[in-house]
């Protein structure tokens, strides 16, 4: 139904709330990328089938039968425990659910309200029936991700029932565009995509341009390896982002918006398309939104696999149908962005913050987070940590709280070594930094950055030189080639790093790395290039001794660097069967039958064929 006025939306909201209230039991099966991969689709179908097949139960509301709602929700963020099933009103969270478990879930929980204990989350000997009490969730402040996992992302009514589009109402009918810009400015909302630039300031600049055709662009090209918060928002609560974009459009006087989503996120694209269509059909998007006289449309553009398109001017070039290469600035995006018109460009998480600021006011927003960085930040917590997943905490939360309280500490009780923050543009934080508050300004002082919010935890089994090489390899691959410092500089840096991990580095290489890194940072054209050297510079600063060990002792104590591993035959265990020698592709193993064989370290290419094939387990590696 097309909503033609504010009252229409309010009536629609009441109905939506009633619809959810009427559900005696609400089963939410996670349908995020992670849980779908674990088979949650089958669980959804099975539970739905069961609800249909039992007498006295109905999927539709009726006074004589218990009304069970079976829905697919967005991502809960606790992907490692998936597939996840949440059951309200008890808020039980079942983990690692299988199709075979559905019967028990139905009989025990849905019909009797009792938990199925074996499917509950357990930590340190304690069982947590309620989702909100699980340490992973209890220590979080989920505002942006509030609805993720709790609503059906493909049903706009559910978003509306949760107070969705209330901010849009307020913006359209109670505030002027200038007031909205002022409110966002006052909230000091800073861009969640990496730079931390003030959102309100961008909006203000666009609003005052003489050119009347303006655009609102959403950067959903979340290319940083190890970050997936934007994916989860687009998949789990797409309307929240759309609402932020419409408000931005109204505030700066734009009629059209574009969302640029990377091609690796097919589910996000599907859900966004559904959300846009629903919003159009209901009069939330299109001409004359809710009868306000304001019109706004949103288009989706799929990325085509170029990391650099996460940079503003490259992204707009890509939407225009050009090669996605950054250009020199000024003119800045706010002056001449998409199609050379003034453009507001923010990322997904930033837009998802807008509605709550408009709804609750800038002062409320300042109560969360730190003075200079108000609000929350979503982080993708991954790597060698017990609880991996998507989390949201107030800005200024310490790394220790994130890794040890929410993350539950290190996997396999390894020792904390470092956290790589902000992906290929970020740096690493070490054990000395565990009590640093994570916000834009404190991290900058440490030579790291929040970036898009990827946190990869590394334990003592991770080689930092190899990690630096990994990131440099990534950036080098993704360098668009336009400016010399990035194109040539990253290539040379990568060559040096490859030399070091191959055991052929020298001490001079370390100085050269630093020199190159500083030169690229100072002279590259865009943000990708300017930050390309950060992972190397930051590991060089914090783990110089590890680099020195690689170049002087030719040793990698973690055993990550293949070239430095030594394959050895234990003479006591070797039966002299000659199998290793026959498998060795370079003839590096020699000996006499029934006598212990030996490996010639000079000839060995460390392929591991001997180790894999030894029937007596006589071959081992030395780091």
């Amino acid at each position, binding site marked *: 139904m097309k909503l033609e006025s504010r009252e229409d939306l309010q009536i629609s909201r009441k109905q939506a709330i009633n619809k959810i209230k009427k559900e005696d039991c609400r089963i939410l099966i996670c349908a995020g*990328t*992670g849980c*779908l*991969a*674990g088979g949650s689709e089958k669980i959804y179908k099975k539970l739905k089938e069961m609800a249909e097949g039992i007498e006295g139960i109905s999927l539709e509301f009726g006074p004589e039968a218990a009304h069970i709602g079976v829905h697919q929700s967005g991502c809960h963020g*606790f*992907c*490692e425990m*998936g597939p996840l099933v949440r059951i309200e009103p008890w808020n039980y969270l079942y983990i690692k659910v299988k199709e075979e478990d559905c019967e028990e879930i139905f009989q025990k929980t849905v019909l009797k309200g009792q938990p199925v204990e074996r499917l509950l989350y357990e930590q340190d000997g304690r069982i947590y029936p309620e989702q909100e009490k699980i340490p992973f969730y209890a220590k979080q402040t989920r505002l942006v991700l509030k609805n993720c996992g709790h609503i059906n992302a493909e049903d706009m009514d559910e978003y509306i029932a949760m107070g969705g589009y209330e901010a849009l109402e307020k913006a359209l009918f109670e505030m002027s565009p200038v007031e909205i810009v002022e409110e966002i400015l006052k909230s000091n909302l800073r861009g969640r995509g990496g730079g931390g630039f003030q959102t309100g300031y961008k909006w203000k600049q666009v609003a005052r341009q003489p050119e009347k055709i303006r655009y609102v662009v959403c950067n959903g090209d*979340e*290319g*940083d*390896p*190890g*970050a*997936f918060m934007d*994916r989860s928002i687009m998949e789990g609560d797409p309307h929240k982002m759309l609402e932020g974009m419409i408000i931005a459009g109204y505030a700066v006087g734009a009629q059209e918006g574009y969302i640029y989503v990377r*091609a*690796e*996120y*097919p589910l996000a694209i599907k859900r966004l398309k559904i959300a846009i269509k629903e919003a159009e059909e209901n009069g939330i998007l299109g001409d004359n939104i809710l009868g306000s006289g304001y019109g706004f449309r949103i288009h989706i*553009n*799929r*990325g*085509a*696999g*170029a*990391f650099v398109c996460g940079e503003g001017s490259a992204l707009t070039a*890509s*939407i*225009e*149908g*050009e*090669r*996605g*290469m950054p250009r020199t600035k000024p003119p800045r995006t706010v002056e001449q962005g998409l199609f050379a018109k003034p453009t507001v460009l923010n990322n997904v998480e930033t837009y998802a913050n807008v509605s709550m600021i408009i709804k609750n006011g800038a002062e409320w927003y300042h109560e969360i987070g730190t003075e200079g960085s108000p609000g929350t930040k979503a982080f*993708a917590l*991954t*790597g*060698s940590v017990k609880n*991996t*997943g*998507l989390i949201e905490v107030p800005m200024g939360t310490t790394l220790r709280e994130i890794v040890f309280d929410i993350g539950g500490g290190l996997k396999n009780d390894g020792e904390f070594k470092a956290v*790589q923050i902000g*992906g290929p543009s970020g740096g690493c934080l070490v054990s000395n930094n565990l009590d640093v508050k994570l916000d834009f300004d404190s991290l900058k002082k440490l030579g790291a950055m929040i970036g898009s919010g*990827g946190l*990869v935890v*590394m334990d003592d089994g*991770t080689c930092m030189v190899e*990690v630096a090489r*990994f*990131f440099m390899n*990534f950036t080098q*691959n*993704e360098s*668009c080639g336009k400016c010399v410092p990035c194109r040539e500089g990253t290539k040379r840096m990568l060559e040096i790093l490859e030399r070091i991990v191959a055991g052929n580095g020298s001490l001079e290489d370390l100085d050269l790395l630093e020199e190159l890194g500083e030169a690229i940072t100072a002279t590259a054209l865009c943000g990708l290039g300017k930050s390309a050297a950060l992972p190397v510079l930051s590991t060089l600063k914090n783990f110089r001794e590890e680099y020195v060990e690689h170049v002087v002792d030719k040793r990698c104590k973690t055993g990550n660097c293949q070239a430095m591993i030594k394959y050895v035959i234990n003479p006591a265990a070797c039966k002299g069967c000659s199998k290793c020698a026959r498998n060795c592709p370079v003839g590096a193993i020699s000996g006499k039958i029934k006598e212990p064989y030996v490996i010639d370290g000079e000839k060995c290419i460390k392929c591991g064929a001997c180790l894999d094939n030894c029937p007596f387990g006589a071959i081992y590696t030395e780091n």
Partner: protein
Amino acid sequence: MLEQSYYDKADEIIAEHGRIQKALIPIIQDIQAYYRYLPSELLSYVALQLGINEAKAYSVATFYENFSFEAKGKYVIRVCDGTACHVRKSSLILERLYKELGLSKEKHTTDDMLFTLETVSCLGACGLAPVLTVNDEVHPSMTPEKVSELIAGLRGEQA
């Protein structure tokens, strides 16, 4: 020259997006989604239809990693080598696939046109690392053993 049906399909896709430059990328994306690669003849054809020169269209298509002028296998396997997967040893997954399929860094597609192997920087499924996708379907928490089973299973589907 390709068969006429290719050009008809291209016309259909062009009509959906409009004859403007900003439609270039969506059009060639759809063509590639349909044929699993971008036939170079069609790229020239699209350029002509949109009124942009061929060199320009070519420069755009070669800039983005997703476009491929070579036909791909029936199963496109993409191994994630993002940070989280890398830390959890995605390199072992890739090595096993190279071995199983007889492919290498230089050779991406098997001769029987069944498998194409690619790496991708991040699939955003970091909680399930290491992951790979087969035609966009995500396979979580992979191990070299699971890789061998997966390939055997896919080959079995053919038999």
